[in-house]
């Protein structure tokens, strides 16, 4: 999930929104951080991709319409439309004429491709900080392993769910 710089003084401008996809009564939680350095469209796109990757959005499920989502999130319809188009282009979603927008069968695999690039970018930033602090390659790997261990403690079946 993408987050902007934490130093923003306006912690109160998030909007968490629960949207029920009408057809399957499925809960989709999207959280928008206003004033973030990450553009809104990328926040929404990233979160939908994450939902696909984690399996919370299953192939064949219908997403809310552009209009509905725009209203729920209080975000410009054109922005939502662009996000959907982008995700369609990336193979996560498909628009069925007259029926709406659905999660594709290959969404999970495609979302990994979608995320890989972003994760790499974020790791690159972190690594740069580490190098600037004088950490060696081993120490960096150690840190990554430690983070992974910590997560495993909190959620033991972390890796199984995402397989």
């Amino acid at each position: 999930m993408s987050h902007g710089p934490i130093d923003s003084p306006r912690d109160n401008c998030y909007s968490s929104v629960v949207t029920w996809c009408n057809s399957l009564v499925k809960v989709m939680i999207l959280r928008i951080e206003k004033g973030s350095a990450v553009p809104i469209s990328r926040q929404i796109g990233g979160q939908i991709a994450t939902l696909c990757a984690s399996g919370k959005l299953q192939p064949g499920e219908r997403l809310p319409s552009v209009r509905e989502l725009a209203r729920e999130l209080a975000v410009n319809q054109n922005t939502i439309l662009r996000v959907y188009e982008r995700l369609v282009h990336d193979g996560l979603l498909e628009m069925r004429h007259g029926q709406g927008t659905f999660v594709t069968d290959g969404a999970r695999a495609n979302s990994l491709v979608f995320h890989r690039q972003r994760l790499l970018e974020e790791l690159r930033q972190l690594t740069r900080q580490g190098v600037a602090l004088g950490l060696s390659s081993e120490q960096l790997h150690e840190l990554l392993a430690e983070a992974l261990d910590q997560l495993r403690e909190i959620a033991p079946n972390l890796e199984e769910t995402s397989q």
Partner: protein
Amino acid sequence: MNDLAIEIHSVQKSFGKSEVLRGMSFQVERGQTFAFLGRNGEGKTTTIRMLLGLLNRDSGMLRVLGRDPAVEPLAVRAQVGYLAEDQTMYGWMRAGEILRFVAPFYPTWDHELALKYANDFEVPLQMKIKHLSKGQNVRLGLVLALAHRPELVILDDPALGLDPIMRKQFNRDLITHLQGEGRTVFYSSHLLYEVEPVADEVAILDEGRIVRQSGTEQLRADVKQITLPSDAILALNKKVKILDQRPDGNEVAITVEGAESVVEQLRCESVEHRVTDLNLDEIFEAYVMGQGAPEIGKFAGVAKS
């Protein structure tokens, strides 16, 4: 028919000796949601009052829905929905009464729509205007601005006086009722993070001119901060527009327009650099407060174009 809802070309306006607008130009296409940004006192309200024909320009060209508001103010006002900043209405009237009072002024007034909006916006129709809260007052003003189904809606800082919950409700109303129906919305705001999710296009007003007009998303993609070694700045193409620069040790953080091409250029010349995304507040600050033109001799090679 002209597909521009608002067209402004090198408009000038002075009050006495102080020049407020110095050749301001911008255009708003029909159907767009257009945010008009600027620091307080930079002439946003002046511009908006000109659009309604409530103030006359000193020179320049100005068209609203194809008409000149200075020549046909009434025709423009009849087609435009307007909510003034801090609008004061008759305190003794009830909210329902002012709807009935204003109705006959607009040939296209739809009273059922007015009542529907009043219901949607939770405006208590039985209450006297002087007893309404600030938020209710703004929403009543909004009902008055929308009930004649205007093609163009001009809102002067509607978020002023709304709490976060109401602002969200307001944005939602704006999206559902206005964007959803293809209306053109021109609004000014001092809350940039509220503007970003809603606006298609933004224009930044500074020192009486528009310093940037662009799609919201494009603007964020286009203006970024790049951190690079101080001496590498000389390697940059002279056409690069630097909005702001801050020395940081032996590095310098520059905020540039056309980030993509700059990054491409740096990559070609294999200059070590980092790119940081900026939020709208930071972009705005770079345009309005930024030290673009390098005054330090070291950066003499780079000019603000």
